[in-house]
């Protein structure tokens, strides 16, 4: 079998037309997912069963099911529910972009909340005791001691999740969105050249991942200044 480079030269610019949408999916769901994750994590470590249990159930559901299934449930399932169709959130679920954002956000939120919890648990108890002994309140300790240290501890795992989320955005193509993967699939349907097109697509994702990885590495080093002798 031959490898047709002209096909690639033709296809790459077309695929890149979807990069904006891929980025929107990534950034919007990463930001919303992080906000959600902070809330879920706080519920989880609150020490109050009526907050911690719902958080644990939520995490269990979203880590326990494939993200593709979650996207399908949101996109195909929710519109069947009358109360959703009649509520103010209906425009969100009528739109495949909205559905993809909801599913990706809920999914990444579950994972990131556990990553953040790991960071919070990793903060040395002695440091918090020193804060207590100096008269800092629970809230002051959380803001000035726990959070900054936990964020630095959680960063490598969090970066991993953002990179994983980039790849998950490709699943949005299954619900008609023309992100990079969606466009590539359309081109394949027209050219019958899955090999060339999907390899090109894979390489684009790899380049994006490399850029993400480098930027996250910079942030890690910047926030980790205090760890270097």
């Amino acid at each position, binding site marked *: 079998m031959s490898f047709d480079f002209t096909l690639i030269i033709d296809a790459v610019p077309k695929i890149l037309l979807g990069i904006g949408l891929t980025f929107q999916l990534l950034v919007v769901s990463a930001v919303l997912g992080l906000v959600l994750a902070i809330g879920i994590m706080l519920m989880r470590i609150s020490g109050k069963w009526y907050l911690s249990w719902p958080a644990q159930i939520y995490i269990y559901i979203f880590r326990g099911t494939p993200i593709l299934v979650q996207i399908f449930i949101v996109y195909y399932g929710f519109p069947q529910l009358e109360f959703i169709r009649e509520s103010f959130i209906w425009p969100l679920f009528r739109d495949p972009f909205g559905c993809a954002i909801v599913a990706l956000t809920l999914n990444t939120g579950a994972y990131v909340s556990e990553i953040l919890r790991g960071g919070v648990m990793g903060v040395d108890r002695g440091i918090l005791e020193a*804060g207590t002994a*100096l*008269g800092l*309140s629970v809230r*002051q300790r959380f803001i*000035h001691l726990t959070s*900054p240290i936990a964020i630095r501890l959680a960063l490598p795992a969090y970066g991993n999740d953002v990179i994983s989320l980039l790849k998950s955005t490709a699943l949005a193509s299954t619900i008609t969105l023309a992100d990079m993967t969606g466009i590539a699939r359309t081109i394949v349907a027209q050219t019958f050249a899955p090999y060339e097109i999907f390899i090109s697509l894979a390489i684009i994702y790899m380049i994006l991942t490399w850029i993400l990885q480098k930027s996250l590495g910079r942030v890690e080093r910047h926030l980790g200044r*205090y*760890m*270097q002798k």
Partner: protein
Amino acid sequence: MTSNAVIQMKNVGKSFGTFQALKGINLEVAKGERIVVCGPSGSGKSTMIRCINRLEKHDEGKIIIDGKELTDQVDDINAVRREVGMVFQSFNLFPHMTILKNLMLAQRLVRKTSKAEARDTAMQLLERVKIPEQADKYPIQLSGGQQQRVAIARTLCMKPKIILFDEPTSALDPEMINEVLEVMTDLARYGMTMICVTHEMGFARSVADRVIFMDAGEIVEEAEPKAFFSNPKNDRTKKFLSQILSH
């Protein structure tokens, strides 16, 4: 009850599950008094001083600090913690802040001091513990002895009436112990009320007004250092002293 007692512990008990860490502790500490607490590991020394600023909650008896009884009332406990400083075995500096910020944080948040004033106080105290040149470094860049001196300065920034030391030299390399003891001796000279859990018997001899020996959660013996070392009364004290002074 003497009126100048800043710490009063009356029949204080504390259990961790079924383990009784403290049993019937009675202790009064006068203003300006310097107390050294020693005893075998697991004897309740740390637990006792941790009850004084309520890092541990006692479950029997009464603790009164500077006229305020320690209870679950949040406002009261924070008011007490402002007056009681603590220095830990493992320094517990805030790793993500420079030395200067370590010293400024509680002043700003708890005492509501202005930034400039907090900085001045911090620098003065770094001078006092003889490491002003380290102000902009991070804790990890300092030696253990330097870190512990920073921890003492951080406590002093709050202008506490009492300082509790929980084995402040136990985590240090031998050559760094003296620089920390010197700072502590200096504090003692200026009349700070101190309770110090330590096995530095030289420090106890030269600085302490009273030495307390604990074993199995009880205060077994207390005496002036001279009497304590030359003429211990209790067999457990004798055994302990022979163990730590034999080499």
